[in-house]
């Protein structure tokens, strides 16, 4: 228990260090973008956030499968925790993207495939949380969540495909293409900033996840104590 706690704390500290370094690198050391100027620097947050969100979805899936299979409350706690943090990072991505979009595209939102996909991701995660919150009985809520976690994950490739085709097969790609940064002439320190921020976000993610799992375990422990009395 306490070694897990220590690990989590170290993770948190590391994440903090990397975030600080990454921000320094992103905000100060990396040169401004040739076309977009300083607003491009938000990329150093934006891209790592969506990456962690994807990771989250995968962890929800794994936790859900394990829970249905083994019925260990531990796996359910994992899935729930990952879903909650997933919402956070997906929302973060969208907010960052929107903030980025306003100066570059002139609008907060556009129906680009990638944006749409991210929004759908958010909706699925949110539906997961709602579903769990609106079912009274604990076991029922856990099982229902697991089912949504699995089905949702299976659905992602299909949603991905359909949304991309929707935007590409149907009409010419929109003039706005956020996914084509001028990689050819990227400054190396841009890449370094991005890499550091990747690591920072992954660390941060696992730190939050471990904390959230701990919270879930504490709640379960509390319920057990109420039942069996202090031991």
């Amino acid at each position, binding site marked *: 228990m306490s070694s897990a706690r220590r690990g989590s704390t170290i993770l948190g500290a590391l994440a903090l260090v990397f975030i600080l370094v990454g921000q320094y690198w992103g905000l100060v050391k990396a040169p401004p973008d040739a076309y977009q100027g300083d607003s491009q620097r938000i990329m150093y947050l934006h891209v790592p956030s969506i990456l962690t969100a994807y990771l989250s979805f995968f962890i929800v899936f794994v936790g859900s499968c394990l829970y249905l299979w083994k019925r260990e409350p531990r796996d359910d706690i994992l899935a729930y925790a990952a879903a909650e943090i997933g919402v956070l990072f997906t929302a973060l991505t969208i907010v960052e993207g929107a903030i980025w979009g306003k100066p570059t595209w002139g609008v907060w939102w556009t129906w680009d495939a990638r944006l749409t996909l991210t929004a759908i991701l958010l909706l699925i995660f949110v539906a997961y949380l709602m*579903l769990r919150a609106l079912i009274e*009985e604990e076991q029922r809520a856990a099982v229902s969540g*697991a089912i*949504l976690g699995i089905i949702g994950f299976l659905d992602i490739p299909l*949603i991905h*495909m*359909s949304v991309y085709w929707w935007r590409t097969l149907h009409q010419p790609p929109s003039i706005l293409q956020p996914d084509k940064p001028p990689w050819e002439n990227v400054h190396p320190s841009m890449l370094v900033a991005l890499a550091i921020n990747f690591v920072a976000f992954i660390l941060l993610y696992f730190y939050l996840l471990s904390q959230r799992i701990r919270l879930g375990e504490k709640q379960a422990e509390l319920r057990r104590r109420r039942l069996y009395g202090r031991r």
Partner: protein
Amino acid sequence: MELLRQACWLLWKDVRLELRRRESLMSMFFFGALLLFLFQFSFEIRQDRVAEMTPGLLWLAFVFTGMLALTQLFQPERENFCLEALLLTPFDRAALFVSKVIFNLILMLLVELVVFPLFAILFNLQYWGLLPSLFAVTFLGTLGFCVLGTLFSAVTLKARARELLLPLVLFPLLIPVVLATIRCLEIILRSGAWSEAYPWLRLLIAFDVIFMTAGYLIFEWVVEA
């Protein structure tokens, strides 16, 4: 096949109940008709735009009426602990899934059968020749809708704010179905060419197959204690 035999019995039960009360069908027909009127009054559908708007409107009408049916799909089981009564029997849980999917499919197809011609008349469309292909595509889409819809109708059986929660959970997952069906319909209406629609059609079929399998495998957990 044990599963099919049991599913048939359960289906027979649902059909019996529906014939006796006609609750779902009635509200679906009314709602479908209301939607058509709504479309008629609110979107000026001009002839040149028909190919573009029709699939969206039609499919939207189907999805919405389908949603209505889904909120009531397990009503008989909710009353009088009948779900428990079913669970006491040693039947294959997947049979319940299969029967409810089929029942829902029947309801929706009936509504579609009425709405399609009504739509054509109201909007003066001339797509009678295309009707078989349109219907085939709609069938695939409806199947996908029913499969996931039934699954989550069962999942949200005991939830509060159910009528809002169900679409909330369901719609994001249904996006491939919605997009694929509409695009297919559009392509057929525009050019009548199947070849262009193939990728979408494949997607639709993949969706149906994946989630029928997944639902079949997972349903046991949905209804158990």
